[in-house]
């Protein structure tokens, strides 16, 4: 299985990532891209912090778990860190398989697990200069629990 795990400050190119997953035998490639929302209009940026070393280990485990559940030909997780402004991409998960159900299910699994099983933390920076750490959402835990 082709595997790509990347944690970086730099932006990535979803089109190029999808192209890289167009592997021989892959009939379906699914992807999820998460971006910085700004529902209130007050957000200046999100700051993404992570635990270098552990993050890579955690993402490797998540990818291995996905590969054990579905017949995947390729799997990609990209997560950005640092300061990201509204509209910018934060995270990308994608999977390629011979069949669409596996590709779609694995993509959903990767993002659900990433949200609860990888050491990333978000801090909101508001336009007035205030700042606040984002609290974990119970619904994310529930989405992960549904896979267990």
């Amino acid at each position, binding site marked *: 299985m082709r595997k790509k795990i990347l944690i970086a400050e730099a932006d990535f190119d979803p089109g190029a990532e999808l192209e890289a997953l167009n592997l021989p035998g892959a009939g379906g490639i699914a992807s999820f891209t*998460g971006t910085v929302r700004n529902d209130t209009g007050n957000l200046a940026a999100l700051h*993404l*912090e*992570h*635990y270098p*070393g*552990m993050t890579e*280990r*955690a993402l490797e485990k998540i990818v291995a778990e996905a590969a054990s559940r579905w017949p995947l030909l390729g799997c990609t997780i990209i*997560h950005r860190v640092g300061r990201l402004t509204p509209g910018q991409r*934060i*995270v990308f998960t994608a999977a390629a398989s011979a069949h669409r159900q596996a590709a779609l299910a694995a993509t959903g699994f990767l*993002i659900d697990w*990433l*949200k*609860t*099983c*990888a*050491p*990333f*933390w*978000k*801090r909101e920076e508001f336009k007035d200069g205030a700042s606040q*750490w*984002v*609290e*974990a*959402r119970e619904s*994310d835990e529930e989405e992960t629990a549904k896979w267990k």
Partner: protein
Amino acid sequence: MTKILYFAWLREKLGAAEEDVELPKNLATVADLIAWQTTRGQNFAAAFGEKNQVRCAVDQDFASKTTPIAGAREIAFFPPVTGG
């Protein structure tokens, strides 16, 4: 010596990202270590107090309160994760 890491608001509250600590020999589990942390001053008491849901990793694997810490080289404390 054990390396202890802090992330997110724990890092900010404690004013430290990393420290090398000689842990008391009688600390067996993560729960023991958290209890000991609360005795290390006001900042620590506030950060590790019961009302805060501090999470832990032992040698870069998520740990629970009952995870043993004997022989651990790197222990990290952080809030519940919020990536993705």
